[in-house]
């Protein structure tokens, strides 16, 4: 619970610094990218601080390159 509050407060502070100007200038694209990054960053920070177990993005890399490694006859063991 403390984690959520702490990360939430930081996210709100960051938004309070940058968002008002972008909203005033009506830059929709900036607002969208900023919100996307801030939301995903907050979610990831909560996961990281609470040490939740989630699938690693590296699994994707392993999935892509496993056939390549096998094709090369297991160059790296």
């Amino acid at each position, binding site marked *: 619970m403390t984690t959520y509050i702490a990360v939430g407060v930081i*996210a709100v502070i*960051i938004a309070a610094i940058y968002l008002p100007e972008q909203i005033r200038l009506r830059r929709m694209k900036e607002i969208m990218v900023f919100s996307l*990054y801030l939301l995903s*960053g907050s979610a990831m920070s909560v996961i990281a601080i609470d*040490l939740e177990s989630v699938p690693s*993005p590296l699994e994707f890399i392993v999935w892509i390159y496993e056939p390549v490694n096998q094709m090369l006859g297991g160059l790296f063991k």
Partner: protein
Amino acid sequence: MLEPGRISVRQLIVVMLLIQIGDMILVYPSLIAGAAQQDAWLASLIGIPFGLFTVWIMLQLYKQAPGLTLIEGLGKIFGKWMGAILGLWYLFYFMVMAAIIVREAGDFLTTQILPETPIRVIHLILVVVLVWGIKYGLESLSRTGELLIPIVVMFIAFQVICLLPQIEVARLEPVFASGAKNIAAGATLAVAYPFGELLPVLMLIPYALNRPHRTRDLLVTALIGFLMLTMIVTVALMVLGPFFTQHNIYASFILSQRISIGNFLERIESVMATIWIISTYFKAVIYFYCFVLGSAQLFALRSYRPIIMPSGMIIFGMAIILAPTLTYYQAIVSKYWVYWDLTCALVIPLCGLLVCYVRKRWSGQKLGENTYN
């Protein structure tokens, strides 16, 4: 232009050298010795021409889209949609690289120097410094690099010189005993890690002044940085022996613990750790910069400043999410990451050059037909 700063060729070279030394100075010996055992030094030397070829290909790709960074250039070379997909792929690469370097620094500090500190605290401090560095822009970053590079190079040389009394050439024998396949694997690692991870240079070149011989200077820099790494590998093999080098993730840290001259000059490993943190910070900050600048260019934002802090939060989270334990990503780094680096640094730029070549030939022929008619 999103980045108002301009850097000189010398600053670009300094940044490139720091990226190449980066985290490799600590983990490279165990990685390459894990593949090629006592022939690691040989594999490392065999990798040089291929590595220089990789850097040359990258610089040739830049010449196809001069004045544009990698992300913009991909859009110009591959077209809008393919360029956007490849741009996202590179953004993912930059993000994961920045996160894994932060994680490596965190793991190193928690296992060797600060065993009772939670790793997240170290990550938080590192990410705050990363964000701080980016906020002041590329110019101040590269000037910081100019200030720090003499210390880094001096202490690496100092370490090697202090270890000279302890080397035993017999530890390199038998030469060629690990077999051609293992040496080839080691050479591939040598191409992928120190040379392939120079990719961020493509994001910085457009902001560097153009001087004659710039390509040549950059290639020579890559060679010098790589020779320093090879020297560390060779000394590690000769002082610690192949087995010990291979099974210590932080072989050069162990190496600096070995320094003992006249019972007086001892325990300098924490100085070496500081040097390593400096060069690792530089690699992380440049990759982080590439991620932030690349996102701003891919999504055509007017400025990259607003997304610096949210990206910092992403890096902070990603550093933990990437891998549950140290052994998990060590296994992936020594097995699959090589291919990923090679794809990003060699295969995609080669495809880009091919596309440019075909397009040039094709449009040239059409022009020729027009003049005949």
